[in-house]
């Protein structure tokens, strides 16, 4: 591996990490598309810097992009003040307006034919491989500074981003913090566009932060993870684009980041789709089990003195096919709630408790709906079938209190049955 590639790789890793970390603050403020606007708005600054100085020096282009990025934020504020509170329109106006001016400048420079223009077009889609050693020092160093500042100041900036009103009320200089956050963002973007380009810079800010949020809820870890994802994306994009001469870095970086995001969306514990599906599945199994034992206990209560329920009675009452019935039995036995005995099934001690608990909750909900919500008695059953699996002991206590009943209140029969038989 040649040393220039190592330089470039280091540069992209740093740029990705810095943008990833800074992007978290934008995400927290539910304003992550502002990065899109700032990035696009840097184009006229770059063009102007080149036009005025005639140089492609990293520092001068950086200065130009920072100045016009900051101007775009000021412009967004003005538009909001003037055109009313339409944040999205303000962002879109600044984005397209500044970008248009930038393209005017670039084509003007191109058509005038002065100066060595080549390489400026890399700012649009990014060309990490075009970075020379000096670029890596300038932009990588800048990214490192931004990264360190974001990590060091994340607690206070996180508070300001989460709840500016509270921060103001305890006497913090909120505007100063916001200015620092904006400055960090602008610097990270100005550095990052060297690697991914203006057009797709928003992705480097938004995607790592959004991905990190799948894996953790806490701010510190979010910041670190987001930086790691950003770095990974930068490295993958650079490595992939170095395999082909015509492939810009930006799109490949974005695709790598999206791959990482997909991993998070699917696999993350708690918030991931897979774990959500698993949770739903477990809940369904639990409901099935509870329904089974509930009906069994009901059957036994209706025939005092019996200890076992024949399988055929249960099957008919629950409307189960042979296969479903077998599955239910297997699972309920595994839960330790029933025992298969001669002549049918018999609830164990815990089975009795569980079945009674579910029946009680079912009836309690029916009483509650009927008395408090005024639902007619013949319509309460379906809702109770669902809610009986969800009521926690705390909710149960609340319902009892609401109904003005003591803790040991136990309606013995489902009330809609009562109504139907006129008992």
């Amino acid at each position, binding site marked *: 591996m040649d040393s220039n590639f190592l330089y470039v790789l280091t540069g992209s890793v740093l740029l990705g990490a810095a943008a990833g970390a800074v992007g978290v603050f934008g995400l927290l403020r539910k304003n992550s598309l502002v990065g899109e606007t700032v990035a696009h708005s840097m184009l006229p600054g770059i063009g102007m810097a080149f036009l005025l100085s005639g140089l492609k020096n990293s520092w001068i282009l950086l200065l130009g992009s920072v100045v016009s990025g900051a101007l775009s934020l000021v412009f967004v504020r003005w538009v909001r003040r003037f055109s009313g509170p339409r944040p999205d*329109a303000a962002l879109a106006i600044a984005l397209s*307006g500044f970008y248009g001016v930038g393209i*005017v400048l670039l084509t003007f420079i191109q058509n005038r034919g002065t100066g060595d223009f080549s390489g400026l077009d890399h700012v649009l889609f990014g060309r990490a491989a075009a970075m020379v050693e000096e670029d890596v020092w300038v932009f990588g160093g800048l990214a490192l500074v931004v990264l360190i500042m974001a990590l060091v100041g994340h607690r206070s900036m996180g508070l300001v981003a989460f709840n500016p009103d509270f921060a103001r009320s305890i006497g913090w200089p909120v505007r100063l913090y916001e200015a620092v956050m904006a400055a960090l963002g602008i610097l990270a973007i100005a550095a990052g566009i060297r690697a991914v380009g203006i057009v797709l810079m*928003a992705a480097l800010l938004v995607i790592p*932060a959004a991905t990190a949020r799948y894996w953790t809820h806490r701010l510190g870890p979010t910041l670190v993870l987001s930086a790691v994802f950003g770095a990974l994306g930068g490295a993958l994009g650079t490595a992939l684009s170095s395999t082909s001469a015509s492939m810009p870095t930006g799109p490949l970086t974005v695709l790598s980041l999206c791959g990482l995001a997909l991993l998070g969306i699917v696999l993350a514990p708690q918030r991931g789709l897979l774990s959500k599906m698993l949770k739903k599945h477990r809940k369904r199994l639990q409901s099935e089990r509870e329904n089974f034992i509930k009906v069994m206990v009901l059957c036994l209560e209706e025939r005092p003195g019996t200890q076992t329920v024949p399988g055929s009675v249960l099957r008919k009452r629950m409307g189960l096919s042979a296969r479903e019935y077998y599955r239910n039995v297997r699972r309920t036995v595994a839960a330790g709630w029933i025992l298969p005995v001669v002549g049918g099934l018999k609830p164990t001690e815990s089975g009795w408790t569980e079945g009674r608990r579910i029946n009680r909750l079912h009836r309690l909900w029916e009483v509650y709906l009927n008395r408090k919500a005024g639902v007619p008695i013949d319509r309460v059953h379906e809702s109770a079938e669902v809610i009986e699996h969800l009521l926690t002991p705390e909710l149960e206590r609340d319902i009892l209190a609401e109904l003005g009943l003591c803790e040991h209140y136990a309606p013995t029969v489902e009330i809609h049955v009562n109504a139907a038989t006129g008992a």
Partner: protein
Amino acid sequence: MSTDGWWVIGMGALVALLCAALGSFLYLRRLSMLGDAISHAVLPGIVLAYFVSGARESLGLLVGAAVFGLLVTYLIDWLTHKAGMQQDASIGLSFTLLFSLGIVMVSLWASRVDIDADCVLYGDIALLPFDTWSWGGRPMGPRHFAMLLGLDVLIGLLLWRGYKGMQLLAFDRVFAASTGMAVGLWHWLLMGGVSLATVFSFEAVGAILVVAFLVIPPAIGHLWSFGSLPRMLAVAMLSGVASSVLGYGLAVWLDSSIAACMSTAALLLYGMSWIFHPQRGGLALLLKKKRVPHAPMMGRMR
């Protein structure tokens, strides 16, 4: 000025009319950044259609673009509601993903697809007048002009027939739904219209400058509407046409990209509103010698 110049201005005006009318409804519904997203996201559709059919004017182009325009809307919905991602982040992820796919395709198939990164960024409105067509032996002018005209008429009809629905949806979605109106259908119609408009404007002005036409003229229209939607639409469309004329002049003067100059002209017109607006403009404020508090200007328009 040459005839080509007039054709270019004409095409710019048609793009501006189209985008201003649709953009006004996006603007009122606070979906301007969604317009940005759609304008980026149709790229893979366009590239795929070019690749499959090899021609510029094809039904495939329409279908491809409409599909991807609706796909990005769907993807944003899915990420927000099914995958639990914050909405701004899901917009950011969706359109950068699709746009990147488009750029990768362009780079991979550069030799086989008649479209390049420059066209994606600036469009090539200056070249379009040379692609002419004739009908029954009579020259009918640039092909793209005719296509744009057709789309303008189509979208115009849609907005004219569906004006009430669009208006209701723009101002009070909940009420609209409560009247039994098919809110979802109107939403998709608007998004479909924006996708089509983006595709057709794409060749003329490029991906990102479409956004300028989608948002800046409506913003001007909103400022000068004084509470009336028809006036907002009229001002938006007028300022769109004015910016394409002005922009062409600017481009000739500076020898620069025509499309970019048109969007710069739109920005300038918006800036003029800052000065000349009768209630909030700089001149009015100077004359009144008193700062108008930042308060809702148009009760009905909010």
